[in-house]
């Protein structure tokens, strides 16, 4: 459950007493309720679930996660995964 997608806040405003904002998700923009992430600023990335920001993305931690993964040595060069049933004459790339 709980589809949550990171997006960047491009504007904030108040609507009927609630802190709202426009969030850009890679070219798709939607109004999002920011009431639970009041410290988020324009430019921050937030994780949005059903139109509500539930968490501010910690960009430093995000980079660190990737750095840790990239630092894992390349142990094997072969491709993992089960091969498909043979494809006669086909491109099995």
């Amino acid at each position, binding site marked *: *459950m709980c589809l949550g997608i990171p997006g960047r806040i491009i504007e904030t405003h108040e609507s009927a007493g609630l802190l709202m904002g426009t969030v850009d998700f890679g070219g798709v923009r939607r109004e999002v309720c920011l009431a639970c992430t009041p410290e988020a600023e324009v430019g921050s990335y937030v994780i949005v679930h059903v139109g509500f920001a539930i968490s501010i993305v910690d960009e430093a931690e995000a980079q660190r996660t990737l750095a840790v993964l990239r630092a894992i040595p390349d142990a094997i060069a072969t491709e993992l995964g089960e091969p498909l049933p043979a494809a006669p004459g086909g491109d099995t790339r």
Partner: protein
Amino acid sequence: MTALECPLPIEEGEVVLLGHGAGGRLSAELLEDLLLPAISGSSGRGLIGRVPLEDAAVLPATGGAELVVSTDSFVVSPLFFPGGDIGSLSVHGTINDVAMMGAMPTALTVSLIIEEGLPLATLERVARSLGEAARAAGVAVVTGDTKVVNRGAADQLFITTTGLGTRLPGTRTSAAYAAPGDVVLLSGPIGLHGTTVLSTREGLGFESDIATDSRPLHHLVRAIAKAGGSAVHVLRDPTRGGLATTLNEIARDSAVTVEIDEAAIPVPEAVAAACDLLGLDVLHVANEGCLVAFVAADKAEDVLTAMRAVPGGEGAVRIGHVADWPAGRVVMRTLVGAHRVVDMLAGEQLPRIC
């Protein structure tokens, strides 16, 4: 808790659902189990096994070239959406179905069902767009019909168009002709039309710079036929139900396996974002301006080069190939290198939260 009176009937006779019109499995069942047997007068069983359902019908040649005919209804809401409207869509959709049989569309009939109260200015705007699209495609609107129904009996405006065309000499495409070893080519990015229309829906709406890919594809078909000739086995435009449904239909009708590579399928960033946001599978999202071509391997590179030289085909790519077993399946190599079966759209495409 004791049963008092349940307001719901226990046993329901089935009724038509919106999903029956979504182009996926439900639509196929409606056709194969109800409409085709009823209309053809036969029992239906076995009918579909031999006759694949094509985008258009090919009528026997009487002297000259074979005649191709296709009909399609357009009920899109809203009438106007970024990059197009119901008028241009009703031209492109039908001439593309004609083109998928390897035919050049020549004439179009137009039937309008108009809801009482529709502003004349709206109707004129749609009609102008329809006319411009037909002229731009080099297709004549040769006859038509207009009906007006009571308010509420239709949603503003429905359009039915029928397209006629003649088959290019030497082409013989069918959903049943995919052969092991064929290369699967896709003419351009997927998901644009479906996400564009969805972006305008109440309750799901979002803003984006996405526009529909609605466009005529017959020039692309001409280039493909010229470069590939009889090596072009299947042409299909993956409209309702998306790429996954179209490939499943081809796999079923040709009794082959279609293998595709997820990393090779072009998905515009905003389309991917809209799908991530709403929890949709981009392989099930409708398109109106791209096609898949199944081409014998030795001609595939020539056809790809020819496609890329035609406007609307610049982004053509190879997305997979055909194997012979297990028959009737579409298998995708996922981003991480595993394989999974890709199913056709079941019923209505619904956004999900989980």
